[in-house]
């Protein structure tokens, strides 16, 4: 019987040992290390479902620096959002879009034919009678009482069932108060809340107990969103949004409506008062429109180049941070750092493709001022030129930026979690990753064949449809 003899000499063995030790040292250098027990406990404080490479920060401390002496909840003129847009550009743009869509209908062009446009029109937000502040269930026998941690876990678990991948919580203080409109006030009231007036002009006064905010991320379908991408060869930027892919945005708003409807009822049924932030999803009711700061301060993400919440696992395909103001005690979750904002400095994928050039193309963040109309001063971050952005019909007819973030990618291919973890550890390769994202063809416009084939896709292998009741189980192959 033949015997195998190792050819490894003692010298070679020692060499291998040296390389092994070097590799171990390298791994130790990039692995998360805890200097003391405080760091260890801080790492456990991070909100809920983030991967191991997401670091928790101190409460109130974002990776976007805030100047609280300047930052206000409303704009200088007292309004909450600057709804003005560049009207001349808007008129020109919408007439060209309409022409493009009419052409698609007449010639049955895939992606913008009648059936594609019908799909976009059909996916609307269901008509719901909203109750912005909703009273607690008065039946004491049905009340749920737990620790703030357990209460948060209860809401988080129900929210996940209802469709949110990640949740957070924060406590209202004088800083957090700034992110809701003047219609909401905290102070002394005889009950949990008092509504003064009616309709959109109503004001609501909360008692001091109504100080907890539950936040939840609602995503847009990223895979389907990619059917929206087009390219305008004359500008090198994105063109008009393809109606077939636009469906994913409309669907997200419908999902938000159902999610918020269910969550508010869940909280009140548990025996707590709950105010569902107004102004969205159907644009009526009093209350705040800016949901992003609550997502940031409760650790659902960092602020990306587009100003949106950038999630460590889903990038800026986050359609909204839903938030609920309640008197149910909730354990707050801290802001996070996963190298997202740092990644934005090197990436530029959204800015280079923005069809209205509204997206900030400064590489680094270098001002607390608001250099463009419609922006807020008071934080050192990028800003969008809102007049240009809404001038081309955003968010209803454009969401280009949302679909281009390299952090959006699904996690099936192992390269994606690898890149995310690596970017969280060191920004050294961020530029390379962004270049590879371009080279690999992510975010490219679909061909006419691909757009047409969507209607004939293989239901058993296509993973992007959200099938009611199926959860994450795969369909039978």
């Amino acid at each position, binding site marked *: 019987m033949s015997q195998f003899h190792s050819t490894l000499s003692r010298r070679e063995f020692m060499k291998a040992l040296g390389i092994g030790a070097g590799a171990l040292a390298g791994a130790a250098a990039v692995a998360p290390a805890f200097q003391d027990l405080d760091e260890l406990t801080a790492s456990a404080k991070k909100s809920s479902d983030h991967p191991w490479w997401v670091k928790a920060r101190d409460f109130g401390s974002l990776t976007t620096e805030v100047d609280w002496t300047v930052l206000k909840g409303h704009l200088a003129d007292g309004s909450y959002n600057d709804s003005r847009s560049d009207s001349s550009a808007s008129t020109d743009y919408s007439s060209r879009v309409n022409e493009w869509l009419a052409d698609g209908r007449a010639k049955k062009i895939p992606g913008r034919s009648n059936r594609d446009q019908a799909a976009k029109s059909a996916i609307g937000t269901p008509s719901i009678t909203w109750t912005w502040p909703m009273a607690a269930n008065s039946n004491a026998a049905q009340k749920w009482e737990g620790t703030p941690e357990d209460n948060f876990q209860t809401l988080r678990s129900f929210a996940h069932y209802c469709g949110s991948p990640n949740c957070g919580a924060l406590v209202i203080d004088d800083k957090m108060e700034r992110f809701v409109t003047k219609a909401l006030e905290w102070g002394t009231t005889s009950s949990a809340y008092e509504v003064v007036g009616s309709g959109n002009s109503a004001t609501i006064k909360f008692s001091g107990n109504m100080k907890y905010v539950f936040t939840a991320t609602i995503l847009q379908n990223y895979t389907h969103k990619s059917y929206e991408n087009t390219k305008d060869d004359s500008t090198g930027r994105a063109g008009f949004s393809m109606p077939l892919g636009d469906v994913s945005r409309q669907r997200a708003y419908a999902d938000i409506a159902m999610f918020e409807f269910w969550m508010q009822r869940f909280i009140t049924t548990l025996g707590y008062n709950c105010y569902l932030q107004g102004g969205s999803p159907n644009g009526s009711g009093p209350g705040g429109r800016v949901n992003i700061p609550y997502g940031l301060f409760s650790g659902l993400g960092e602020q990306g180049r587009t100003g949106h919440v950038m999630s460590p696992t889903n990038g800026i395909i986050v359609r909204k941070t839903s938030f609920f103001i309640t008197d149910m005690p909730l354990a707050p979750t801290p802001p996070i750092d996963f190298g997202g904002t740092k990644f934005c400095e090197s990436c530029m994928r959204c800015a280079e493709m923005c069809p209205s050039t509204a997206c900030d193309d400064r590489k680094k963040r270098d001002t607390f001022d608001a250099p463009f109309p419609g922006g807020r001063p008071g934080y050192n971050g990028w800003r969008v030129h809102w007049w240009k952005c809404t001038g081309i019909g955003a968010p209803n007819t454009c969401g280009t930026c949302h679909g281009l973030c390299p952090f959006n990618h699904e996690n099936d291919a*192992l390269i994606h979690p690898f890149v995310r973890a690596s970017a969280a550890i060191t920004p050294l390769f961020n530029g390379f990753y962004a270049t590879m994202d371009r080279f*690999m063809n992510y975010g490219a416009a679909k061909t006419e064949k691909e757009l047409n084939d969507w209607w004939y896709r293989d239901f058993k292998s296509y993973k992007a449809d959200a099938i009611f009741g199926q959860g994450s189980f795969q369909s039978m192959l």
Partner: protein
Amino acid sequence: MFFVGLLFAIVLAVLITLIIVNKISVRWWEWVLFAIGAILLLFTVQNFLSSFSENEPIVAWRFLLVLGLPALIFLIIPVLLAVRRNSTAAA
């Protein structure tokens, strides 16, 4: 990926058996190069197949170019080195 893993294990077993039976001497760095190539190849196949499930067929093919090509180089070099050295020794 289950079948990819199974196929990989079979190929590896056959390769090691051949090395033992034919008394082929393999240097330690050739094993290292081969291991890097094998890991890279598995990584390539995983990303290739998963990109199709992510509905990104063009990305899938580019993975073959970006990761698959280096994987093949890492796999072929140690094989060529070992074959050449052993054939020289036999001669």
